[in-house]
């Protein structure tokens, strides 16, 4: 609640800084495209070589966005004794690939995430930091916890809710499709078998069949 009040008190300052952040984000997003006509932004088409998968578009998030995402990625998927954190497997690179893709759903996610990141920077500005990543680790964690709590209790704005949910979905999706992530949840398939004999006795007992 305190944080909400602080935000209200600093509204004018926040709005001003967010406007600056917004402009700079737009500038950074668009400038490389104008400068380099070579930026690839095509989809892979309807006749792909599935045995030689190629990402046909360039990843276009800027370095500030990537730095913020890397921190957020580890807040969403932290390392523990069973598996590494998101940054160790560079899941942010997958998020960058996703939001740079030229397809409508991915472009929608790009909008959701880049605007969400700009809002986080705005909140960092209230704490005299230019970017979210400039905050101390504790402050980053606090700010993300506030966002998560507001999503949990339904007080978050629609934009913030979507921002949080899409980030979690993409980090979960990126992480649990890696070898480490699949091992963590216990996926043991995708191997050739002579025969399929059904679940082992141990499983049958546990589920009562």
């Amino acid at each position: 609640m305190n944080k909400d009040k602080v935000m209200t008190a600093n509204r004018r300052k926040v709005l001003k800084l967010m406007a600056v952040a917004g402009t700079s984000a737009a500038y950074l997003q668009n400038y490389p495209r104008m400068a380099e006509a070579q930026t690839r932004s095509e989809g892979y088409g309807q006749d792909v070589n599935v045995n030689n998968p190629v990402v046909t578009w360039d990843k276009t998030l800027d370095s500030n966005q990537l730095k913020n995402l890397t921190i957020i990625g580890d807040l969403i998927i932290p390392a523990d004794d069973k598996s590494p954190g998101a940054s160790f497997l560079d899941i942010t690179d997958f998020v960058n690939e996703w939001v740079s893709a030229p397809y409508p759903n991915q472009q929608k996610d790009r909008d959701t995430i880049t605007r969400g990141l700009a809002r986080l920077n705005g909140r960092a500005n209230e704490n005299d930091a230019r970017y979210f990543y400039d905050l101390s680790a504790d402050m980053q964690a606090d700010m993300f916890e506030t966002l998560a709590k507001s999503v949990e209790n339904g007080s978050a704005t629609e934009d913030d809710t979507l921002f949080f949910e899409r980030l979690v979905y993409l980090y979960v999706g990126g992480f649990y499709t890696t070898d480490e992530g699949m091992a963590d949840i216990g996926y043991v398939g995708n191997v050739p078998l002579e025969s399929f004999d059904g679940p082992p006795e141990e499983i049958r007992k546990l589920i009562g069949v």
Partner: protein
Amino acid sequence: MAEHDVIVVGSGAGGGTMVHTLATAGVNVLLVEAGRQYDPETEAAMFQLPQEAPLRGESTPDKNSGFYDATVDGGFEVKGQPYTSEGDGFLWWRARQLGGRTHHFGRQTPRYGPDDFKSKTRTGRGEDWPVTYEDMEPYYDRVEQIMGLFGPDANEAVYNSPQSPNHIRQAPPAPRASELLFAQACEKMGIKTMAHPTAILTSPLHDRQACFYATNCIRGCSIGAAYDSVTSQIKPAKETGNLTILTNAVVYKVLMNEEGDKAIGVRYIDRRTEEHKDVFAKVVVLAPAAMESSRILLNSKTDKAPNGLANSSGNVGKYLSDTTGASLMIQIPKFENLPPHNEDGVSQPHLYAPWWLHGEEKEKEGDADFIGGYKLEVSPYGGGRFGPPALSDTFSQQLYEQKGLYGKKLKAHMRKTYGSFMTIRCLGSMTVTEDNYLTIDPELKDKWGIPVPKFHWKWSDEDFRRTKHMYKSLKTLAKNMGARVVRDRSITHLEGGKLNGRGGDTNHEVGGCRMGDDPKTSVLNKYSQTWDVSNLYVADGAPFVTHSEKNPTLTIMALSMRAGDNIIDRLKKGEF
């Protein structure tokens, strides 16, 4: 002069069966395919993981069923080849490759039952086909021997769901853990379960290998374990020396003689050069997929056939149908924290419950007031441990109810609940009515200037009632499985007291050139030969009269083989 005995347009389940039937009988065949050459042996992705694909393999407008799906230049949209729809809307899945949609095919191959061919006679509702189960049975046997399938013990078959004989079908894989629970729950409901007849080999057949129980079949099958028309029919047909294959040839017109009573060939556009070319034969067989057959006939007007070829009945493009369906996302607490175990299997359900209510039993049910029925099964997609975990197939279920979850608690949740979410589903009959048909759009044309189809779609009240009954059964099933319903699709699906959703969504669209005993009310006779043009046949899903809850492919193939036999017979008699 005819260069070939027979031209077959389209190389999917219908076309593949036709060329195999004809070429192996010594008939000179030209196969004309709109898409490119495709060979699953070298092209299908088998063990590749989502992590190796762009966007972790998730679906995009370019690849509607995900990056690794076998479909080439297709999906619900084909660039430059649009279609329109009105009413409840329609989705039209197409593929542009040798083998057509048989690579993307789910491989479920149940037989139609005796009642399915004689709905009107047996139940007083629907329509009768001009063939009986007894007529079709030998063709089911022969098709299955070429295609290969696993299925249940034929002696286990329930009423109106006949199964492949034990000397043809192969042994099924064992049920998965979730399916054992499904079977237990069905038993409580008095519903019998058994292996689902599926065109996948569990033992080698015709130089094809047995399944190795990994990899989703919609990627195509490089070892030939899952049936596709290229591996099982077109390659052996080619080996006879009687088959010529023309790819990238988009047929848009049947060519007629001056009298307008005999087909002499077809006209196509070469996709690469955009040249219009003609090819000739004694007999023309259309098998480009049901909707396209109607489109070609309606676009093949002559002075004698001003409303479209073979359309003296006015029935071309009419009586379309798809299957109906319902699904629930469920979560089973008993499946939480289970030790890792391999549940991949064949990527299709290993078990199912064939439709169980008939006659008095159905009447007693009270709210089962509809033609046909539906089957029950656990979906191999949308949860569970089937296949490598992926965003939309696995994690979206696990995250569906979560609000604000992240960090260590998120990781704990993912471990605990992995494999405990799944989708239970029904596939059902559709009531065939005059409200579902296609016409030629009066304005829109494809990139080559060929008029495109316009679909008119309207679900009937009976489809609504059947689907409502499906959800009732699914909810009882969920309860009996010890599951809770996470996502109840019926809320939107049945909203406003009508069935919401688009036709074609289940990729089972058939009809448009229905067969019959009366030339005034049907387009084809009982051999799939057009009433109006004796040397013109239709051998895809277009001949369907009614639509049961059984997936249509096996019946498409059996009808095609039967038509093929008829062509061979008439060629021998010199009738063409």
